[in-house]
């Protein structure tokens, strides 16, 4: 195992693959930090889990047709996000059942099409478990564009998003476009998930959408402060996790999640000690 010094760190930044990984973790932190704050506040973590897994169907079809699997994943993610909402609202299927249906249907379609694809499916593991070191330049541009779009959207329409998320029914009585906002945000969640699949993978992405937010929630209970704080914690987690995976030579996705959990655990412990031991005097 190498020892991390300032010198080796600076040296790392001279490698293209490492710069790519650095940008990928920055963009992942921005997009997942913002969107995750919405997901956690609104308690739709499980909906997001459904969308994530349903997107695997698109990856399978992408392989089968020879497309970029992420294109298929994006289509499946958006459709399943809207589908979960439609099933729940119009067809009156209970929400958790509706999520489970889309979740497993997507996985099943993915497995079938990967099986039908002749030969070995390259990079399959990187979609499932993430591989930040293999993110392509095109994907980086897309992630950067998404991050910028999310920052602008959440700043310009901040109060609209906040009011609808907090009390949907009341928002209807004040004449806000509740359904439009809901469908728009579900679509943004879907796109965020798909573009970050390469960083931490389908199985692990939920944690990037919830752990930094849980850590941020220790410091603030104000939506507008929770967003930048979540971005910060997500970035610390992904970057430290990335370094860790590089030096110890373990998969980056798992390493990032492990760092995020560690960060949350340490902060939680610090708060616990401050509240229960220090203030007791």
């Amino acid at each position, binding site marked *: 195992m190498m020892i991390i010094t300032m010198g080796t760190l600076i040296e790392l930044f001279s490698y293209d693959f490492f710069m790519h990984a650095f940008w990928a973790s920055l963009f992942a932190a921005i997009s997942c930090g913002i969107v995750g704050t919405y997901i956690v506040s609104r308690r739709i973590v499980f909906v997001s889990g459904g969308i994530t897994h349903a997107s695997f169907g698109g990856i399978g079809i992408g392989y089968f047709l020879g497309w970029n699997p992420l294109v298929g994943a994006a289509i499946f993610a958006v459709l399943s996000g809207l589908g979960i909402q439609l099933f729940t609202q119009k067809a009156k299927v209970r929400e958790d059942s509706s999520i489970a249906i889309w979740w497993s249907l997507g996985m099943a379609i993915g497995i079938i099409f990967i099986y039908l694809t002749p030969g070995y499916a390259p990079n399959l593991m990187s979609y499932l478990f993430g591989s930040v070191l293999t993110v392509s330049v095109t994907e980086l541009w897309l992630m950067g564009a998404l991050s910028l779009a999310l920052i602008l959207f959440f700043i*310009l329409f*901040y*109060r609209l998003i906040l009011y609808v998320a*907090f009390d949907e029914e009341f928002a*209807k009585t004040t*004449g806000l476009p509740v359904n439009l906002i809901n469908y728009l945000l579900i679509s943004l969640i879907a796109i965020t998930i798909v573009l970050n699949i390469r960083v931490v993978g389908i199985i692990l992405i939920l944690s990037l959408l919830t752990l930094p937010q849980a850590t941020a*929630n220790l410091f603030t*209970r104000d*939506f507008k402060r929770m967003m930048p704080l979540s971005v910060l914690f997500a970035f610390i987690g992904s970057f430290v996790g990335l370094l860790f995976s590089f030096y110890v030579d373990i998969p980056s996705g798992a390493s990032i999640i492990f760092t995020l959990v560690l960060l949350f655990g340490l902060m939680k412990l610090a708060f616990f000690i401050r509240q229960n031991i220090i203030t007791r005097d």
Partner: protein
Amino acid sequence: MNNKLVEIKNLSVSYDQNTVLEQANLDILPNDFLGVIGPNGGGKTTLIKALLGLVKPDSGSVKFHIPLKKVGYLPQINQIDKRFPITVIDVVRSGKTGSQSFSMFSKKQDDIKYAEQLIQEMGISGIKHKAIGELSGGQMQRVFLCRSLMNNPQLLILDEPGTYVDSQFESELYEKLKELNNRMAILLVSHDVGTISYYVKTIACVNRQVHYHPSNVISTEQLTSYNCPLQIITHGDIPHTVLSQHENDDHHHGHTH
């Protein structure tokens, strides 16, 4: 009278083929302080949700003679996620309707000033930057009352504001409503007839159908004939009457004075 604020005509609402409201008629007049009473599941909340356009009726109509944004609404507090990361001042500002800037950095001074004025009038200035999760039931109810007043409404609709608060705050709240009644009509939904009949001017009993009483006194015979299983205490010249509990109604509490 022709200056009605809202007219509800032959309104029927059902959920999954269960009729909750049948041919309901109700008019709301300026200066009304209308108590909407009735058993749990009798359709009180459905009536106001249909009135506000949140529930689609099977038939009938709701006609507003005032702009919809001049209706203030305080929903049942148990419908609200109390751990949502939002501050008091933002909750109050969310009551604003009409054109506004939604940007994070917009500082619309009129809105902020009015929200702060309402918060001050309600005596909760000290908590305006707190998250709602840190408030007591009474404080939270005050915050939601501020939100419902954000548009300076002509009609204020409150759904069970007396729940989850202590009895001292409950009477403070009703006194506050009495004061507000000088400048707006109030529709107060409650299953607790005993307490609200002190304050309301008229009563509508909702149990699938709506029966309107142009006074705040309602007799045992009237209630039973309307199939409105409630306990009631009347005030004023009439001696106390406590209704016996309806046999399949175990949700209501007795009241003594």
